[in-house]
């Protein structure tokens, strides 16, 4: 077995180790992505609103 394949096999525990890392990455990465998108959207909404309020003044 090559070095990389042996590493990926995780001594026979690949079926448990990799899903654990995948779940952690998906949950925390997903949370980061969702937080960031909503943040950008809140900035856009605020820009739109303060822009329209400014034009009416």
């Amino acid at each position: 077995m090559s070095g990389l394949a042996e590493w990926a096999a995780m001594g026979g525990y690949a079926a448990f180790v990799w899903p654990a890392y995948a779940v952690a990455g998906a949950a925390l990465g997903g949370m980061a992505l969702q937080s960031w998108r909503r943040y950008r959207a809140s900035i856009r909404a605020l820009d739109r609103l303060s822009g329209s309020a400014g034009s009416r003044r």
Partner: protein
Amino acid sequence: MATMISRLANPARFMRVSGAVLPVLAPAAALVLVLGLYLALFVAPPDYQQGESVRIMFVHVPAAWLALLVYLVVALGSAVALVWRHPLAEIAAQAAAPLGAAFTLVCLVTGSLWGRPMWGAWWVWDARLTSVLVLFFLYLGYIALANAFDDPGRGGRAASVLALVGVVNLPIIKFSVDWWNTLHQAGSVFRMGGPTIDRSMLIPLLVMALGYMLLFAALLLVRMRTALNERKARALQLSALPSPAAPLPNPSPVLR
């Protein structure tokens, strides 16, 4: 410390300071997490009993620590919101709760994936596992309550009370492995007499924990800024509505 917090508690100042901190905090979190993953997957040795499966520890244990730490943030924010009615405290608690729920979920799922090969079971109703599951439901209940009412003030207060009642669960989680006979092992890092875990595993574990903490701090700031932006947008929207010349007996815009 108290004066620092009360100074930061002004929303305008919070936006200024967090806006300056975030561009440093977010890359630092990413960097430490990458370093932690490298140490966890390539440098740390396999365990002499558990073999390579021990690598699950590096994503599981920091998630458990953060699950507890974030709950403390939620409870503290709730207490300050209830006692002093400080708007930023409630915003912080509500911004932290979904992050805490995510860490708790990671802890539960990775624990299950570790338990199957080591204990021969995906799940056991043991004191540690059950109390962490209760923590997960406390987070969900808090989030649901905070968003349950049309009037955010009422929902926020109900949620804050739930968060404070739930604090009782924290020492139960921490000491469950000492008070009851559990399948879950006892702590090996934060214990009297120092850690029993070997340095070669302790250092990758602490680096991962620091990465999780920096990630939490960065996302907490992002979510608090989002909440303040959304609040400001709502206020702008309301002020943009044509205001009646004389106060109407029923000012509800729906009934007009």
